[in-house]
């Protein structure tokens, strides 16, 4: 300290601190740099790969779209969906579309109208538990 005080009165300390900044050994810097770069190349390769795949996909889409491939692909997909639906859906009801005299002759009888009968039944049921109003005395002969 004595030596310092004697020689460096009024020194620019900030400049000294900057100039006297500790520096690492070059061997240490090279070693650490190599390690970081090795890991970095893996990092860069990964992101480059992703970018390449993205670019390739975009180029292919553009090429296909320019010759109407998108519409073609969508219609093909639609057809495939229809075929699958046909296979998967149960289809045991046979519908005969052809009309013939036999069908006209022996066609299924129309369902009878049971409305009236039902009404009558209802009325009968309805009177069962009720006391019928008498307008005149019953005939006794």
């Amino acid at each position, binding site marked *: *300290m*004595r*030596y*310092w*005080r004697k*020689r*460096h*009165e*009024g*020194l*620019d*300390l*900030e*400049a*000294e*601190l*900057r100039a*006297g*900044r*500790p*520096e*690492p*050994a070059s061997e*240490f*810097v090279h070693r*650490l*740099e190599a*390690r*970081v*770069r090795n*890991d*970095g190349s893996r*990092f*860069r390769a990964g*992101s*480059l790969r992703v*970018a390449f795949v993205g670019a390739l996909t975009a180029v292919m889409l553009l090429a296909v779209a320019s010759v109407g491939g998108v519409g073609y692909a969508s219609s093909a997909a639609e057809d495939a969906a229809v075929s699958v639906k046909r296979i998967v859906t149960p289809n045991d009801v046979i519908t005969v579309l052809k009309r013939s005299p036999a069908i006209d002759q022996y066609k299924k009888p129309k369902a009878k109208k049971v409305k009236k009968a039902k009404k009558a039944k209802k009325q009968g049921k309805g009177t069962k538990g009720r006391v019928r109003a008498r307008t005149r005395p019953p005939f006794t002969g």
Partner: protein
Amino acid sequence: MLRRDPLADPAPLIKRVYAYAAYRLGDGADAEDATSETFERAVKYRKSYDPRKGEPVAWLLGIAKRCIDGGWSKAEFPTQDVDSVDTTDLEEETLRRLMISRAVAALDERDRELIALRYGADLTAREIAELLGARTNAIEVALHRALGRLRGILGVDETEPVRKRGASR
């Protein structure tokens, strides 16, 4: 979109992180260990680097600070008794560096950290403020006081003859 690699050019970053670590821990093996540890963590978490939050050096110094605060803060600062050094054997420059290193070691932890960030890692007061979560004004005042204390330890006059323009950006 390609992500920006914060460690694309590691050599200057290694030097700055090392200078910071050396001002805090002393020049030598501890500073090298802290620097290695910092870069190991940086490589591991390089995807977490966000360029919007600052330059890669500030990000690395944040990691270095956590490394040192967590593991090395109680380590003994290696110093050499300069009075016992034979001045005829050493050049004046080397002796001056030793003196400064010893004076920095005598500062308290907070002052040493500020000196390390400002003169070791070469950050501006604003960058230090961002890193430490303080106001730029407060950092400038704290740095001024730390320098004053360093001058006191070195026995240098408070009145500096030549102050370089823009020295304290």
